């Protein structure tokens, strides 16, 4: 099946070009470093058990895991954007597409094959590294986030949104332009979620409407919101609810309607990408 051939090819390229090896080494170093930091903090808490309760430590750990997820999500978003941005554009610019497209394959096969390959690598990376990070944190501190699978699923969904966006741009524009635009839109979507929390506290309807529109146009921020919600223990959520303005934590998950919208958004963007690529002269 051509679509699976192209998916395999996309994965093989990341392996052969040592993208996966480089990211794996960097991620392993990051996990080791954060594991060391968590263990140091845990030892400190144990040494000061009279003033730092288990609950205090769990609260601190949960906030640090959430901050790590912020960093992880941002790196992943940039990575997804720059993986997908050249996926079609560079094949067309370099002449690789000239050799492949006259074969008995449809352009939709090439595009969706690349999407599947990149999405498989990205999702695999999220669950592997996220799982290892959570396991390390649990091993050194005893803390585990409340819903790790759900959180990693939301992080993956956010990356898939950016993959689809960058891949669609790649059918028409240069890799560097697409990469920059995708990362910028990710930033806009993320800040839209933060601004929404602030606007909610100040009861500003106009800003909230604008933020809602942003979250509908670029749903990566909404997925980030879901990830953070599932990393918050009940204790942290209760504290957050008491604070009038807290843009870093989340008090409610995305609605089911929003999840359906996000899935439809990905499908629609890919359909648009296929239509644009079909019309493109190579």
């Amino acid at each position: 099946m051509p679509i699976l051939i192209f998916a395999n090819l996309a994965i093989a390229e990341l392996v052969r070009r040592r993208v996966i090896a480089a990211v794996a080494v960097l991620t392993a170093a990051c996990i080791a470093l954060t594991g060391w930091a968590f263990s140091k903090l845990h030892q400190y808490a144990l040494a000061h058990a009279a003033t730092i309760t288990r609950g205090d430590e769990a609260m601190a750990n949960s906030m640090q895991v959430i901050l790590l997820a912020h960093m992880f999500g941002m790196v992943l978003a940039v990575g997804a954007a720059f993986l997908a941005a050249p996926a079609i554009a560079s094949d067309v610019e370099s002449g690789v597409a000239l050799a492949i497209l006259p074969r008995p394959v449809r352009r939709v096969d090439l595009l969706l094959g690349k999407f599947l390959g990149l999405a498989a690598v990205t999702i695999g990376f999220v669950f592997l590294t996220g799982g290892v990070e959570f396991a390390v944190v649990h091993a050194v501190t005893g803390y585990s986030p409340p819903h790790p699978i759900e959180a990693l699923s939301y992080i993956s969904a956010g990356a898939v949104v950016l993959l689809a966006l960058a891949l669609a741009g790649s059918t028409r524009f240069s890799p560097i332009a697409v990469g920059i635009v995708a990362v910028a839109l990710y930033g806009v979507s993320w800040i839209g979620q933060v601004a929404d929390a602030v606007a909610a506290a100040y009861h500003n309807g106009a800003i909230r409407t604008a933020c809602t529109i942003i979250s509908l146009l670029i749903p990566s921020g909404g997925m980030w919101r879901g990830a953070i919600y599932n990393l918050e223990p009940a204790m942290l959520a209760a504290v957050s609810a008491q604070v009038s303005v807290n843009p870093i934590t989340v008090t409610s998950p995305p609605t089911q309607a929003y999840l359906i919208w996000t899935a439809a958004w990905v499908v629609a963007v890919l359909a648009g990408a296929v239509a644009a690529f079909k019309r493109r002269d190579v």
Partner: protein
Amino acid sequence: MYTNALTKFYGPVTALAGLTMSVPHGEIFGFLGPNGAGKTTAVKLLLGLARATSGVARVLGASPDNLDMRRRIGYLPELFRYQDWLSAREVLALHCALAGVARARRRDAIGDSLALVGLAARSGDRVGSFSKGMQQRLGLAVALVAEPEVVFLDEPTSALDPVGRHDVREVLRSLKARGATVFLNSHMLSEVEQVCDRVAVVDRGRVVALGTLAELIGGPKRVRIGLESVTAGFVAAAARFGDVEQADGSSIVVSGVVAGKIPDAVAALIAAGARIISVAPESQTLEDRFLSILRKPDDADSDLR
């Protein structure tokens, strides 16, 4: 394959202006033209890589988007690159898979193709380490690996040394021997002259000459006849066969002599009493013809279309 009034505009630029031609099965068809004439655009339209503004293109009787048709063709692009992180063998394996070559046949097909283009010893090397000429050899192997019925070759020898060019000509002849059709896009005129059955010359997006090589370059010839002496009678005898361009004490140069009439001209001179020392027909090369076609006013060559 055939095209009818095939037109392609890139914005305000006319890349192809109503291309009409046909290539029968089993023919090696040369597609000549200067840079920017529309040769590559025509191939891209035939292969569905670009969309025609108007007109019809058919390969093996099917539209360029037809996947069954694409299983039966091979293509070597002019400006191409293969995945430089794959080995030559892996590139061919990829194209076998995409072309739908049966798994049982792939190993032999890949080995045969690599041997055909002289890359068997480098089959495991990464394409990124290949010279431009080696990449072009690999491109030829990719075009042929699925044993296509129709092969499109766009400047297949532009990066090759003389040995490589000779090898490509041999490959073309072997393709013809097994009944394949070859669409050869080139401005290497000597190459076209040696292997093509028919030739189309395109300029500014339209065919300005089309025919067999004999039709294109087998027209009236110029002949220089060396004589012991030249008299007015000899000149008059020679003038019956063409235009006497030059007549001096030892030779007469006649142009526009119809092919096959040179022996008659010599016989007429002998009959008139001339003693012939030499007869030197000056053959027109494809390059001469190519240049004369392209330098003609737009409507002066309509008889050749």
